[in-house]
């Protein structure tokens, strides 16, 4: 069983402490919904795990069959809230380039068109420059390359908010489909989305991480419990 273990992670900007000894263990096969209020530090947490920001304290590691090791580049996929893709390439060229340089790590042997179909990208869009893609389409491309690389940990920052209802539904199915092979952490501040998709709800509040157990509460009581936890003063 693979786990992502965060231990006493600390991060501050000037005097503002964003992460205060945040600790948590994420397991493979589950989708975690990371809930937090605006500015709680969800993106900061992701940036730290992705090593875009350096930690001021604490550590994180992967534990596989009881032995822990440092995280490498190939372990992490990160889908940003605002998708960025090289706009001068077509979707097909971007995928070719991506598959070319990552071929040693890619496990599934699909053709480019198979990947496009997997992501439900229409044939007529595949050879367009990505500068002409819509926001949602760019987001799809970003998600797709991260799925192709098949990293152990997939961090998704507000991924479904830019999709229309039909695509959002497709993406939800897709994430559920791939969850058994990954540790999926999904940040959002839309509670319905989190409840609908995620197996576990984790909240980031006052710099610490805390799991909110569902127990045998019904949906409404569970929502109240989450909101109550988010409102809690430090």
């Amino acid at each position: 069983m693979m786990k992502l273990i965060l231990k006493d992670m600390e991060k501050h900007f000037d005097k503002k402490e964003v992460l205060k000894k945040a600790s948590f263990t994420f397991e493979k096969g589950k989708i975690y919904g990371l809930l937090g209020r605006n500015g709680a530090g969800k993106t900061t947490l992701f940036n730290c795990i992705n090593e875009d920001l350096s930690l001021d304290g604490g550590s994180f590691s992967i534990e596989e069959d009881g032995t822990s090791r440092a995280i490498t580049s190939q372990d992490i996929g990160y889908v940003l809230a605002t998708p960025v893709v090289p706009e001068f390439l077509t979707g097909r060229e971007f995928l070719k380039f991506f598959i070319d340089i990552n071929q040693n790590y890619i496990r599934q042997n699909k053709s480019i068109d198979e990947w496009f179909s997997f992501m439900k990208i229409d044939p007529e869009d595949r050879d367009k420059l990505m500068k002409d893609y819509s926001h949602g389409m760019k987001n799809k491309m970003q998600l797709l390359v991260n799925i192709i690389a098949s990293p152990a940990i997939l961090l998704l920052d507000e991924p479904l908010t830019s999709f229309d209802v039909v695509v959002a539904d497709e993406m939800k199915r897709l994430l559920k489909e791939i969850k058994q092979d990954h540790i999926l952490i999904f940040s959002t501040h839309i509670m319905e989305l989190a409840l609908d998709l995620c197996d576990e709800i984790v909240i980031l509040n006052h710099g610490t991480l805390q799991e909110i157990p569902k127990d045998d509460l019904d949906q409404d009581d569970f929502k109240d419990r989450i909101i109550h936890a988010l409102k809690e003063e430090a």
Partner: protein
Amino acid sequence: MIHTLFTSFQISLSYEINAFIYRLRKLPILKKIISADWYKNRALKNGITAFVLLFHFLALFAKKFLYFGIMALLPAQYLPGNFSSNYIHIVLIFALFGAAMNTELFDASKEKYYSVVLMRVNPRDFALSNYAYYLISLFVSMLPASLVIGYFVKIPVLICFLIPILTVAAKLTFTAAYLLYFEKTGKLIAGSSHVKFVWTMILSALLFGYGLPALSIVLPEILFGLLTPLFVITAVPSLSFLLHSHSYQKLYKMILTLNTILFHVSENAAKSQQNGMQSHLKLDVTSNKNGYEYLNDIFLKRHKRLLTVSAIRLCVILSVLLVGSLILILFSHQAADVVNEFIMTLFPYFVFILYLINRGGVITQAMFFNCDHSMLAYRFYRQPKAILRLFQSRLRLMIQINLMPASLLAFGLPLLLALSGGTNEWMNYILLPIAIFAMSVFFSIHSLVLYYLLQPYNINMEQKSPAYALANTVTYLICYLFIRLRAPTLLFTSLTILFCVIFSILALYLIYRYAPKTFRLK
């Protein structure tokens, strides 16, 4: 109205002071000393405000002295004919074209956007109070400069007084005319976003201002005496029209769009420029390479125009200059001697020339805005191996582009040298081109290394690195100082080649060592 003016001052002052503290906090050592608390420290902010106000006040007057000094006094001295007549001619032409071109009311600015759009200040009050302030401060700051410099040029005191009066009256007249036109047609003629209009005006002003005296034609002094009362007469109804107009809201709606503001905030200018280039992307080119070479190849092919256009332009200019000099030395012994001496003793000049023809800045900017900006968000792209592979192919690209104009020089200079009388030292013919190639390669490496080590942009494509700006300024200054250096070409070229080789090796070592850590979004 006074209240509105005061409020708008406060808004732009707050912006300026916060930006000042923000920039201080970005500097290496100061960032440790200055805490974010500075933003709310009243006493401190009052201190900075006083400092900024004093600076503005002095700058206001200094600018006018510089204007009259550099734009009129200096050229008037060098142009043929009578010094003071030339001066009056230039000032008159510039006052008229300046009044037609520089209207303030129609310019888009951050301050206007913040006040009128974001803070919902009444557009009419804002426009009138700011325009009044603009004209009054213009008059007050112009008068001392006009009198002092006029005294040196020995022109009648009356004309010194007429200069600011004419300027203000002409501005009022033109502004009212443009506003009337806007009311009737809904179209704008002037304003900072009308680039073509502005440049036509500037070029015409230069052409008539300096060109006519060069042909020994100057406007008579008496025109000042005629035009000033004329414009004062037209200024009266103009002022009344401006005061009673109700189209300021409509006007601001038109000029204060987010796009024009983005364009006029200098840090975003580059972004708009690059965005403009994107529309030229063509789908019909492709590549049969693989991996990073594939990416780089398509990048180069799709952005060929953007990457090479300025190098090609330079080649044309250099060719014209070279051919021009060739013709000159073939027909004139005197010119041949000058050229020969220039090449033999003033070769250090070429450090600065090669610095100027280096396209590194434009190319790295294009790389960031069109490729790295998005690709750096992907972790695989930041792997040491990836960064170094791409650095290599980009370095090749950069060197190739810079060698286009450099090779013209490398072959042109020895040719000029030979035809202008030659030299006893045959080594010069070999070392000259090698030194030029070496410098060209050096500047290519220099710009790319700076970009990779100090990657100065953030995800919003704003330049965020004072270190990068500093490094560029220092480079400029050093290259500029070479102009003053006098050294025998043989010695200088040898040292240059040696330096370029050592620097390049050192820079490449730094890249391999540090770029994987430094090449990321700010």
